[in-house]
């Protein structure tokens, strides 16, 4: 797997152009909601940005900057939402987010990171295979007894820690939808371990790799050809992290993609009217960061020529249309867009281990997102990730917003 030194080209190539901090120019609608980086928006200094973090990484590597508590906090405040990365890649061939993730991995390797609160992920995972330290035997406690599972199916529903333990309704609704669509699937029961997202994104790579290896081995043993997830973090991890461990020989689908297929094939009908004005929040790891990672080894030659050519993940082909197509298919539902949408979606504050280590900042980010959602005139904010649900619902509660949060699977079940 790449280390920080593999991103020297990115660090040395940065011209401080500012693109990592703002949405794509033509997609702006005015003065408001144009900043894209949560830490830049909150802490104002340029050092708090994709550019700032790669500058920090470079100085750490070169030895002109030393570790300290404040530096570690600085590095771990980032939600790793990747908005900097995608906006940089709209104009450059640089790997801003991978540099930030490698920087965190270096912090861990040097015994400086992650934040103490984030170390618990690894401890809990070691004992219970989930990031909350909950009883592993209860991972599928949400599953109704009468669920019709097909043991011989090559499609698996991978539930994920956050859905299983905190938002089991998402799991139940996912199962209902798959049943309604006539899909044969199974679950992994005790063999399902955390996907590794929080460990990967806080730089705890050895532990993340162990989880990935376990899950990959299980997929092979169980002859899994299609993996369905209802969590954006799981989705982005399977597509963005697992290919760094081994080549994927199975398809990864988010439940929104499954529903989209069912609707297009006429296997699912959404008939019931849901009168609401909804805005859709694109989760980072389902949207801009959901493209398949393709390993690259080679040389960056003069004038930035990559030999052999490298396939960059620029966020162009994220899962943007599926959730929107579904929402538009629900009778009575009016979909209104926030300015920062799709690849330019503003983070909910729920990623990168930030809610655990910096809950106040996480809440601030989510509150900023709510302001944008409120500006659309919507009464419901919809997404399809338990981490987003946690952040946005928390912000709704704290700010006493009139907005309601709904997971997309809930709306689909209600509309069937």
């Amino acid at each position, binding site marked *: 797997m790449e280390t920080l030194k593999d991103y020297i*080209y990115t660090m*040395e*190539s*940065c*011209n*401080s*152009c*500012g*693109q990592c*901090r*703002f*949405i*794509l*120019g*033509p*997609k*702006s*609608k*005015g*003065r408001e909601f*144009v900043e894209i980086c949560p830490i830049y928006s909150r802490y*104002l*200094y*340029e*050092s708090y*940005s994709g*550019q*700032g973090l790669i*500058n*920090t990484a*470079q*100085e750490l590597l070169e030895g002109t*900057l*030393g570790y*300290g508590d*404040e*530096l570690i906090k600085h590095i771990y405040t980032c939600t790793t939402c990747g908005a900097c990365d995608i*906006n940089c*890649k*709209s*104009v*450059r*061939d640089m790997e801003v987010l991978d540099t930030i993730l490698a920087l965190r991995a270096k912090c861990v390797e040097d015994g400086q990171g992650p934040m103490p609160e984030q170390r618990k992920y690894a401890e809990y995972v070691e004992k219970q295979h989930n990031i909350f330290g909950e009883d592993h035997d209860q991972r599928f406690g949400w599953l109704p007894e009468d669920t019709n599972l097909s043991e011989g199916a090559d499609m698996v529903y991978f539930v994920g820690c956050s859905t299983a333990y905190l938002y089991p309704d998402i799991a139940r609704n996912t199962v209902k939808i798959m049943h309604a669509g006539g899909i044969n699937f199974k679950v992994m029961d005790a063999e399902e371990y955390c996907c590794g997202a929080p460990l990967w994104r806080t730089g705890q790579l050895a532990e993340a790799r162990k989880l990935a290896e376990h899950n990959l081995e299980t997929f092979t043993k169980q002859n899994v050809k299609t993996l369905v997830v209802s969590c954006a973090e799981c989705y982005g991890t399977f597509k963005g992290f697992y290919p760094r461990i081994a080549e994927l020989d199975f398809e990864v689908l988010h439940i929104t993609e499954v529903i989209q297929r069912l609707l297009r094939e006429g296997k699912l009908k959404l008939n019931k009217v849901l009168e609401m004005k909804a805005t859709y929040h694109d989760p980072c790891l389902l949207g801009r960061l959901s493209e398949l990672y393709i390993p690259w080894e080679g040389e960056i030659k*003069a*004038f*930035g*020529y*990559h030999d052999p*050519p*490298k396939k*960059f993940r*620029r*966020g*162009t*082909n*994220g899962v*943007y249309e599926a959730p929107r197509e579904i929402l538009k298919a629900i009778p009575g539902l009016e979909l209104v867009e926030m300015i920062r949408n*799709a*690849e*330019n979606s503003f983070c909910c504050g729920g990623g990168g281990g930030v809610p655990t280590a910096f809950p106040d900042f996480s809440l601030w980010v989510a509150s900023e997102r709510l302001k944008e959602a409120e500006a659309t005139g919507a009464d419901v904010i919809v997404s399809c990730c338990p981490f987003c649900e946690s952040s946005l619902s928390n912000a709704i509660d704290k700010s006493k917003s009139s907005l309601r949060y709904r997971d997309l699977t809930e709306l689909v079940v209600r509309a069937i």
Partner: protein
Amino acid sequence: MSLPRCIYKIIENIVGPDNINDKEHILTAYRHWSPQSPQKPPSPAAIILPGSTQEVQSIVRICNRYNISYMTQTSLFGMGFPGPGTVILNMRRMNKILEINETDRYAVIEPAVRHVQLKPEVLKRGLNYPTASVGPSCSVLANFVASGDHHTQHGSSRVSRYIQGVEWVLPTGEILRLGSLGNDAGWFCADGPGPSLRGLMRGWNGWGAGLGIITKIAIGLDAWKGPRELPVEGHSPSYKIHLPRDCHRIHIFKFPDLDKVRDAMLEIGKAEIGFAVLKFFYATEAVMYTESANDFWELWNSGLYQKELSYALWVYLACWSPEELEYEERVLQDIVDEIGGEPVQESIRKKYEDNPDFFIMVSFLQRTLKLGGGWSPTKLGGDSVRHMFEVAKSIPEFFYDFIERGEILNAPHNFQIIPMEYGHMAHIELLFFYDRTIPERRQVTAAISLKSMETDIKHGYHAATPAHGKTMMEKFGPLWSNFHVWAGKIKDTFDPNGVSNPAP
């Protein structure tokens, strides 16, 4: 060089503890060695985030009292670099659009308002402003007070001519309000009553944060003949914008030689048609309209652009009505036919039709940096259209040497000439790319600038831009009528303590 604690505390009392910082991990972003710079900048002593003109004024007075040099930065992507021990006033918190006056057609803004913010605000009101080729994330105010050439100046003018009322914190901390603003008469005019100071404040190229701090500015607005909102389809970086074809059309014509390009440019100006007319950089075009560096190389090595765009003219027609467009197209076609031009390959033109934001907000300008980040412009001067083309013809005299030595990309025609005000004058810019991974290549920027200036002097051409900074001015001043003597007098008068970005 750190800021003495007692001074840090004084400034902290002005801006609040969250808005000044001198910690090493905060300073990293302000001392990064950009691949476009020949040398690594020294670390600033501290970063200050003032929130108002009064705070700026107070900080500047403190700097004068304690002999602390200061400069401003907003977008970072600039040409002003701090000297050792300098404090940087990052204007980030001063980011309000104070007024958009649709009747008198001006916008009043603070320093940290970006093009990505102001452009859509004015478009939605049916207005527009000349947008410097810097990219949407850059400060509008910074572009208007420094340099600021742009792709649509044929139908408008250089941005400096659009400056109206100005609020200026002088290097000593006094506040000067220019023009009508100084008489409490509003923001509509930067000149008079009385002599105008706009030239001193701005001149041709600005002072690189060396003559105080502009805290508010009014810029003139023009009519926008396009939709109130850009119709963007698709996702980054493959998005497209299709403007109504019955009123918007983009053409690129190739000609047998540079003289014909010039003649067409002059005739189009004489006819007063066209929103944008330019002889654009052909290699830069290839960099901007390809996704990756590898894509660029594939295109460049195909030779298509060298064949089609070495002597080409880009024309963007933006009209109120189909009838107006029809008229302009007929006039244009007559001119092109008469001078002997023909359309370039359709695939090239189509790129502009899919992404006309190149003209409107130069959305993806930063792709210019894609070849590893090593690039530099030179010349950047202005004079008559004819003169600029004479200058262009002299480029091979010094430029080929650098190409033959392999120090820069082989792109001898990578210069642009953009007329302004329908041809009253024009601007030239020669842009080159170098491989910054070879350390000594970073020095090529200074070498090319020097050779370029020597060539201008030899021919009596007026094409180079006076450099920022006392050292550079003294070095090159004698080449331009000793302008540095006057510049020095102005600097000494306005900045007696020499604290406003003394520059290296």
